[in-house]
Structures are given as structure tokens and as C-alpha cells.
């Protein structure tokens, strides 16, 4: 998915984990994923560069589809489909 397509994705659930450092964002993502259905899209907002690498690994393990990351000013928007 390219950058433009990524910004067009409809987000069903947004998790703001900008106030935490590793492993906070991962924990926040784990807690929130239970609140969406299979096929729905979740975004994780994190100011932590490490989370950007961590979330795809987590998706791979859990069988979620990692869609990509949008770089905003000072934080990342990491998108995945359950």
C-alpha cells in the first residue's frame, strides 16, 4: 500500500499511545485489538520509533495484516487490519 492509499484507509479504532514508551504502545495495542472485529482497521499513534518496528512483528505473530506507517510531525501512525 503506498503512502496516499494509506491515508485513505478508513480507521475503525484509534489508539493514542503517545504518552508511553516501550512496551507501553504494544500493551495499548493489545488491549484495544479486542475491541474491534476481524477485518476492521486500527491505528496506533506512537512517538516511539521502536514501536514502528515492533507493531509489524506483533501483527506477524498474531496473524493481523500490517498496512503501513504514516509519519506525522513528531509521531507515527501505524495501521493494521485485524
Amino acid at each position, binding site marked *: 500500500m503506498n503512502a496516499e492509499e494509506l491515508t485513505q484507509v478508513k480507521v475503525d479504532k484509534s489508539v493514542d499511545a503517545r*504518552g508511553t*514508551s516501550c512496551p507501553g504502545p504494544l500493551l495499548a495495542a*493489545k488491549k484495544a485489538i479486542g475491541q474491534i472485529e476481524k477485518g476492521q482497521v486500527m491505528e496506533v499513534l506512537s512517538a516511539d520509533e521502536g514501536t514502528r518496528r515492533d507493531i509489524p512483528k506483533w501483527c506477524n*505473530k*498474531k496473524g493481523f495484516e500490517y498496512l503501513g506507517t504514516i509519519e506525522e510531525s513528531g509521531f507515527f501512525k501505524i495501521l493494521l487490519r485485524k
Partner: protein
Amino acid sequence: MPQEAEQKTIEQKIEALEKQVKQLQDQRQDQLSMVVFSNDLDKILAALVIAVGAAAMDTKVKLFFTFWAISALKDKNKNAGGKKDFKSKMLGAMLPHSISNLKLSKLNMEGMGAKMIKSIMKKQNVASPEELLKTAAELGIEICICEMSMNMMGFKKEEMIDYPNLSYCGVATFLADAGESSIQLFI
């Protein structure tokens, strides 16, 4: 007839293979077994971050606290109620009273370094060891305390923190759990 016999051999082979696969699967579970040996602030922090991270990824986590690390599980508001002998009291007085006053393994500088690191952590929203331990409890991370080293250090069960999945065990429990874990660590 020979064709039937051949089919039977293949079926038997498949059955044997299935058994082996199941055995292999049972041997290595999605589980992390960690020996926590040190009571240095930095090492306890590393151990807890890894443990909580693993639990966040739905890996089952078992922590084995032994030797110095046991002092990090003491509750400073509890006491052994006169059960301790002189040497145990001495050791207890010289070791950290809880997870809140651990020392850094480097640059501790009489506690100045530890204080500085904690203030930096707070500023950067890094969870404190106390918070991580609380999260660990919420995630169902199991903690097992080595009974032998606890007796050696003169610690009593009455002085340990309230933790939902806390038990006491020996080396065989760790080895059995580690044997079926896909990840084993010593910190």
C-alpha cells in the same frame, strides 16, 4: 494385495510422523522462562520490560526470582514479625527494602545515579519498575521465588509483596518450565 499393504505402511508412517510432530509441538511452547538473579535497578527494569513485552505479545511468561533479585519483591511495609535471626536481619538491612530503592549496576553514586535515571524515565514516559510489576500482575505473568535462596538470604514469605501469581519453587520447576519454553533468559 501388495498395493493394500503399501497403503497400510504409508498410513503407519503418517501416524508415526504425526506423533512426532505433536511431541515436538509439546516440547516448545510459546513461553518465556526467565531467571531474574540481579537486584540492580537497570537489570530488573530490563527483565520486566522484556516480560511485559512478551506478555503483550500473548507469550506465556514465567519469572524465576533467585538470589539478590528476591529483595526486589519485598514489601517495605511488611515485616517477618520477629521470625528472623541476627544474620538475616543484618542482610535484610543491607539489601534493598523493596523494588522502590534498588541501585544502578553502574554510576549509582550513592543513589544519585538511580534518582537521576528515574527522573529521566519519568520525563520520557518510561514505566517505572513498580508500574511494570503491577502491569505484569494484570497480564497474568507468573512469579516463582527460589525457596532455597530465600532461606539463605533469610527472607520470610511474610515480607513479600502481594502478587496474584506468586509461588515458591525449586530448581526442578524452573528446568521443567524452561525445557518447554521457546525463550529462556538469565538476567
